[in-house]
């Protein structure tokens, strides 16, 4: 599984970083980026889905 944050859609709500800090980080402006090229380690699939399901801007996708 892989996740991707669309930087044009992200408005810095910070939901993904709060729910899945293993998968996302935030920059100095508070905008999110995926860690480790978005690769979701085994066992963290639920957290990845939580991050997607809590982004008010629909900025996160599971890409594969």
């Amino acid at each position: 599984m892989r996740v991707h944050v669309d930087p044009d859609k992200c408005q810095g709500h910070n939901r993904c970083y709060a729910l899945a800090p293993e998968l996302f980080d935030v920059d100095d402006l508070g905008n999110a980026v995926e860690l480790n090229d978005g690769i979701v380690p085994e066992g963290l699939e639920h957290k990845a889905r939580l991050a997607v399901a809590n982004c008010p801007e629909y900025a996160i996708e599971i890409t594969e």
Partner: protein
Amino acid sequence: MTIDRHPPVTDWATDFDHTDPVWVNNPFPIWEELRETCPVAHSNRYGGTWLPVTHEHVSSIAYDTENFTSRAVVVSEARPGPNDLPAPIGGAPPITSDPPFHAMARRLMLPAFAPKKVEALEPFTRELCNELLDSLEGKEVVDAAVDYAQHIPLRVIAKMLGFPASDADYFRHVIHLILEEGINIAEEDDTRLVEGQNIDAYFDAQIADHVENPRDDLTTFLLNAELDGNKLMHEHVRGTMLLILVAGIDTTWSAIGSSLWHLAKNPADRKRLANEPELMPFAIEEMLRAYAPVTMARMVAKDVEVGGCPMKVDDWVLLPFPAANRDPAFFDRADEVLIDREENRHAAFGLGIHRCLGSNLARMELRVAVEEWLKRYPDYELADPSTVTWAAGQVRGPRSIPVRLPA
């Protein structure tokens, strides 16, 4: 002759008023009915105001910065005039700014409110909550809004701006003026000008003090900040201070109050949170969804149709994010508070480019305030539900919550 601008509302679809006592006390049934009968309501009050109540319409307007301007975001009798900074800057950047200026003014402020900056304020906030809780010890009935919730964001914001915490009464006066009293002051009334000058004078005094004694706070930061190689205009500095003061206090105080009010009424939720602390992050988001304090507003910038309704330039548009958050077309069991709701794309902090600048700070304060309260008082109840009162206007939260503490 005094004109009564707020006769009691009898028809919410054609004559609504968000300061009507029925709305103030419980707006949810109003929105529910409108969603089914008239999802974009209109009122001639405040010189012409629209009210979309579905998630679909509220979000589409929030994203549409072409047809809607943020030049004024508090629906009032007076619209912005010659004494106010024009679009795209507006009187309190960046909340009142439009593209392209908005992005620059916002970018300047984002680092101060980014998650890692906010984390550093958590120990101060926790200590503050405990100080307040210490002061409640031994009392049988306390007011969770007046004695606890209101002080938390006020002290945090005063610290961030570098203003004296002892000016708390004045901050509350300014907030009340801008969000409640001021919306009824007509354009031609001198009170508007005089009160505006008083607020400017307070900020000018703080600025003068910071010029003389620069320190590590947002005021000194704003005084040194540059946009495109130029220092900020004096009005921009004051406008951003006003924004932080007004938007950073009343809102979070409301969110903390609503959460403590809900938990006072729902012992099952309270017990579950005590036994399953891992639910706290979801519970906090659910409180924000169900009791979102902030209804934003826009003005129509270009004639446009929304849901078949013809909106004209300079009409007000209320953006009730709390109504969007209760839309059953967007949320399952929208009217129930489910503290373990895992999927929660709520819009309590807005959507799009104006996402609340202080959302990370608000969330931290809310979580810490609820955690510390529940640690100290896992059991408490409303002393008398009929004495709970709510703020009127675009920020909704309880202003008095008398609760009984266990002996």
